[in-house]
């Protein structure tokens, strides 16, 4: 019986070592294989990534040319008007829609999605209107609709008089928390 126990112990020890090796050797072989493949793969990836970036950057530059071409084709440079909307975050006011009238005629109406509102809150500026306005003096009227506590149909209106025909005009409509919270204030500013 004692002999059997000794024999088993020897076998056991051998087996413990074997099992440990069993778990280690395939893992080591696997790791070596992985490392070799990784080196070749990384070299391929670096070259390919650089080539893809070069082609995509050429796409961007051609895209910028196409943007300018499209603008030049559609809008005479002297009478272009761009109206942008920016919003300062407010815990009280939730913007819903903005309407732009030029000389009392509807020029643009936009209902904001959640994604767009989030982009505005993070400092983005929405292109509300990008078009041609005949040379001369014009009145821009902007109506903003949204929700504030106890008033789900909150509205504000603001006007600006601008002169077209002297080059590209950029007007910013800024919605910001008002002095009397929670009602927001709206202002129109021409960028020169």
């Amino acid at each position: 019986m004692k002999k059997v126990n000794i024999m088993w112990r020897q076998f056991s020890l051998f087996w413990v070592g074997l099992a440990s090796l069993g778990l280690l050797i395939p893992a080591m072989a696997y790791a070596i294989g992985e490392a070799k493949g990784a080196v070749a793969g990384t070299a391929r990836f670096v070259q390919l990534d650089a080539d893809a970036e070069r082609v995509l950057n050429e796409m961007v530059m051609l895209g910028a040319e196409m943007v300018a071409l499209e603008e030049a084709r559609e809008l005479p440079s002297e009478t272009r008007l761009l109206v942008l909307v920016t919003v300062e975050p407010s815990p009280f006011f939730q913007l819903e829609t903005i309407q732009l009238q030029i000389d009392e005629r509807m020029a643009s109406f936009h209902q904001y999605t959640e994604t767009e509102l989030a982009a505005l809150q993070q400092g983005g500026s929405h292109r509300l209107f990008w078009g041609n306005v005949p040379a001369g003096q014009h009145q821009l009227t902007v109506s903003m609709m949204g929700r504030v506590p106890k008033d789900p149909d909150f509205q504000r209106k603001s006007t600006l008089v601008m002169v077209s025909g002297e080059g590209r005009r950029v007007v910013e409509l800024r919605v910001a928390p008002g002095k009397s919270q929670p009602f927001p204030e709206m202002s129109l500013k021409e960028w020169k």
Partner: protein
Amino acid sequence: MSLRCVSGGSGHVRLPALKRMLSGVFCLLLSTQALVAAPVVWDSIEDPLVRAAQFDLLVGAPFEAVTRLESDLAQGYIKHQPAQAQLVLGGMYLASGAHHKAAAIFAALGSSGQPQQVQNLAWLSLAQVQYQHGQTNEALESLRRISGELPGQAQQERLLLSAMALMQQQHFGQAVTHLRQLGQKSLVQQLSEKSVWATYGRFNLGVALFRQGKEEEGRMLLEELGSGAADTEESRALRDKANLTLAYHHLDKNEPEEAQRYFVKTRLQGPMSSQALLGLGRVYSAKNLHKKSLVPWLRLSKMDASDPAVQDSLLAVPFAFGQLEAFRQALEHYQLALEKFKSEVEQIDQAEAAVNNGALADKLVHIVSRQSMGQRWLVQDLSDTPGGRYLWQLFATNEFQETLKNYAQLRLSLGRLEQWSSQIDDARGLSPAHRRVLEKKVVNLQSELLSVLDRTQKHLKVLAQETLKHRKQRLLSYASEARFSMAQMYDYASRRWGGEQ
């Protein structure tokens, strides 16, 4: 609901379980990338045209954002703070994967005569790009060029990025110094703040302290992380990772009691569960509690056999039975392991066939067509692709994600070129010379795009083939090991009992 990942095989994986696993893995992948992926918070962008480009970027149209901004810059429309516009432009190139271009913009700004704050932000952005692409020395050099303190979060990012880069270079002491500069508050207080940077910083600092031999300080941070409340999958995965780090640290020091304390804190449903079960079995085995070691190992052995930890458990279970002198069960489980290894090898063969005959590429094209440009690919989206069970680790790699993103952008670009070609044809008032120049650009770009697209598709295929090959080699090695152990057992039995029988 079950998902058969490879047709004809016997392996079924619970889809929600696989998705959870992939989700967790992706979270951990982010843990290394989040430190460099977080964009600098620009204090205030004044020019409304730059803000309009930001809007495009934020609503998921990065190509429109960058082309419009380039167009506005080229036409001289950006009149207010043009340096700020360049910083934003660099960030946009970075967001669309054009890191060389982004790095060039940041480097130019950093060396320009712009105000110090603009230069500092440019150096920080450049360091982030360099660190992300493994250029640790260059990243540290860029960080050294920052003069004075940065505003707000940027300063926190700077210190943690420095620490990460130093840790990668094994300079743990200097890394700790940087992390200690995080504020006037005590280190633990500072790192306890609910900032993703602070959380990852705390984990990495804990590991760094351990490696430096400052076990108590390291343990304090990791224990706090491992027992704190976690309300997101990302933080729960990080908590598990902290507990596993402590557990394996003690296991390697042959302190099974201590290791056990941390293994049992790890979730059995999370992405780290298989590592926890494997380690827990090792704890009991080290304590010669072989019967108890069978509990986690048997549980693990019934999980998805494509997981390397599960494959380990398939060999560990018969080992434990052998220790218990239950030779019949040990042989049965070796036989079971062999069958599972064989089944997995067969499924890998089928996955290889799917990759070779283009089924994987077809699926990727399908996913690409559903996604808009600029989005980060989610590993979960790729879980039901052919061979997904074996390729999810590949899907989670930066190389695969970046290559797939390039692939998507290149395919979208082909469509854009066709559209531009029509626009050029229809454009009135365009001079013949200008038209010829534009047409030539489109034709040249189409040719280049097709070439790079083809190589990108082949690269994705090679990556999948190599991964499957390595997975197969591992399984074949394990199968050999199981057969060898069985032969040893038969040999022992014949020597011990052969005469009697």
